[in-house]
């Protein structure tokens, strides 16, 4: 027959295991932040052809067909691509739709000139742990994330993107 102390120790241990289990099931890795390197996109088994990002300023944009602000951001991102591509800049659109068909239907009516990859297993987006849709990350020529944008707030975000991209292209 265990003593009261033994029983309590056992209960506390059980409680700690329970709490640790719940915490680990909900916790993810740290979100991508300015100053850290962009992980190699090639390791995430994305659908589509990954462009050459070496020595380029890159805007990685996470989007989905069901997200209104993503739709609003597309013409802006397309304009950025056309304006700065010749200076060593590219947008990489990462689609996180669960169904490929939804993405394809969207792209038929919102065609863009920048490359689109699909994160079908949602591994990359989970690694980035984005805080809202859309989310974009501006990466410098050395592959370091310099700016993070959660959400698209129209002309304000556009102005910020232009300022940040021009700064990195200098």
């Amino acid at each position, binding site marked *: 027959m265990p003593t009261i102390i033994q029983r309590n120790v056992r209960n506390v241990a059980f409680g700690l295991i329970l709490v640790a289990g719940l915490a680990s099931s909900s916790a993810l890795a740290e979100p991508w932040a300015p100053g850290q390197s962009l992980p190699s996109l090639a390791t995430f088994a994305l659908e589509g052809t990954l462009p050459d990002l070496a020595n380029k300023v890159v805007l990685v944009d996470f989007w989905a067909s069901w997200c209104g602000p993503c739709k609003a951001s597309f013409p802006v991102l397309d304009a950025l691509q056309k304006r700065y591509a010749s200076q060593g800049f590219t947008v990489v659109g990462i689609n996180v739709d669960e169904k490929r068909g939804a993405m394809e239907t969207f792209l038929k009516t919102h065609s863009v000139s920048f490359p689109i990859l699909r994160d079908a297993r949602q591994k990359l987006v989970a690694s980035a742990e984005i805080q*809202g849709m859309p989310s974009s990350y501006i990466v410098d020529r050395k592959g370091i994330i310099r700016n993070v944008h959660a959400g698209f707030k129209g002309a304000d975000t556009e102005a910020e993107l232009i300022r940040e991209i021009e700064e990195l292209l200098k």
Partner: protein
Amino acid sequence: MKKYPFDWKRLGQLLSTVLLAIAGGCATVQPWERGTLADYTMRPDRDELSNSFAEHVYFTRESAAGGRGVGGGGCGCN
């Protein structure tokens, strides 16, 4: 008639099991997983006629109106 003693230990075990079962169902819906929530059918204001009926019933019953407006539909956009 046989009298059963109340078994606190058993009750504790039962409650822990129920708590475990409920806690295991907790989940955070991440921003990139909200496609279904962002669907048009999830919008509270998708049917104007039905809305005005509901408003009318609410006003008739409560003698008060309004307070239905909430921002966003839970898609996590912006």
